[in-house]
């Protein structure tokens, strides 16, 4: 088992991209990536160079995924807990999975025994971040969440007072997590009632009618009068158009003039 796949994905490189960068045949890289074949030293050096990491980092066993305390324990993880070692701690089995919820320090491995110095360093950093997270006060509700609660309440026909009554406090006093849960609850209620989660019908811009209008004017050989951004005025019989320009035969000079729509304020059909 190596960390090649994790490092490659972290660097957002596809197998083919890495194969090209490291000048290694892709079929070999697939085998290294999936841990089916040990990476020879020569290829390890090439991969380390291509990925801007040390060869040791690639060879190191992958770190377990860091989970947040709020995440539920998935069934396989719970099952793994039964197979935990005799230490009883939140250890990392050889498979690299987190085996049980860490009570205070988050979902982090407590043991990095046998890991490389880089791995231990990364682990320490992750642990300190998790500690900071757990000791920090809960984040307050965001403006977006306040707006969303108001919007969803509007769809359900619940005013601010009713929302506060349901919550037992005004929405602004909720924590970010509480707000998230409450928003989820309101959304489920809306769906259960068969209402739309969108507060208003989305307005789409109408399909282009201008080309049809111009085609009609072209057929009728209409005279159009234009007012441009710089105050210039033009008028003449339309002789062509495309999405960005309208061509006219100038009424005064008989010259063909191409007028850019971007430079126009407005135009109209001249009657008579």
């Amino acid at each position, binding site marked *: 088992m190596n960390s090649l796949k994790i490092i490659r994905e972290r660097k957002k490189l596809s197998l083919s991209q890495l194969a090209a960068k490291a000048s290694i045949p892709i079929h070999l890289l697939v085998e290294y990536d999936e841990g089916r074949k040990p990476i020879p030293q020569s290829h390890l050096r090439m991969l380390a160079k291509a990925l801007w990491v040390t060869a040791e980092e690639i060879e190191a066993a992958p770190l377990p995924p860091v989970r947040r305390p709020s995440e539920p324990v998935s069934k396989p993880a719970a099952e793994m807990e039964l197979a935990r070692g005799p230490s009883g701690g939140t250890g990392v089995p050889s498979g690299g999975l987190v085996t049980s919820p860490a009570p205070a320090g988050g979902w982090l491995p407590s043991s990095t025994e046998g890991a490389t110095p880089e791995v231990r360093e990364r682990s320490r950093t992750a642990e300190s971040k998790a500690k900071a997270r757990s000791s920090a006060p809960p984040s307050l509700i965001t403006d977006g969440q306040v707006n969303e609660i108001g919007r969803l309440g509007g769809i359900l026909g619940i005013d601010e007072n009713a929302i506060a009554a349901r919550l037992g406090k005004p929405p602004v006093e909720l924590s970010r997590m509480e707000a998230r849960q409450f928003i989820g609850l309101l959304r489920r209620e809306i769906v259960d009632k068969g209402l739309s989660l969108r507060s208003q019908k989305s*307005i789409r811009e109408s*399909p*282009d009618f201008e080309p049809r209008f111009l085609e009609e004017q072209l057929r009728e050989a209409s005279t159009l009068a234009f007012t441009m*951004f710089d105050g210039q005025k033009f008028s003449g019989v339309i002789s062509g158009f495309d999405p960005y320009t309208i061509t006219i035969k100038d009424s005064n000079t008989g010259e063909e003039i191409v007028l850019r729509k971007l430079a126009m*304020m*407005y135009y*109209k*059909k001249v009657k008579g």
Partner: protein
Amino acid sequence: MSLSDYTKLLRALHGGVTPLEIQEATGISCAVIGEIETKYRRVGDDDAMLSTLATYFGVPLDELQRHREWYRKRLTAFLAEARSNGKPIRLFLTNGEQLVGVVVNADKMVIRLRLLSKDAEDVELMVQRHAVDHWEPVSSPEPSLEQVEAAILHDSNV
């Protein structure tokens, strides 16, 4: 005019400077400029960023903030409502001109406006969307020139 159109106009007025050049000069990423220029919804919430952009283009910050409020989706919604209820609207164009009329149709590029005034009976204008600075509903049609003259005469007599 939306902040999107206004930013494009400012770029054009500054010799067609590219978003990349703006990024190099100000530190505002191309992606942010791209978002401002392409999104139809209200964008540009970050006043510090707008301030940097205003300094770069040599325009007042409140000018950018003003354009931020007249975003494209807002105009689309306004036109759709005006078209459905048939009520007259007033368009304030970027050249200072004001047009009062009823929306006949509106698409991505133009607004077909039937003008409301005695002189301009049955006149329909194809107004380019980018020429519209801002807009408002009109409670009653604009008084005709005769009505305005009569009112002035009445006032002077009083």
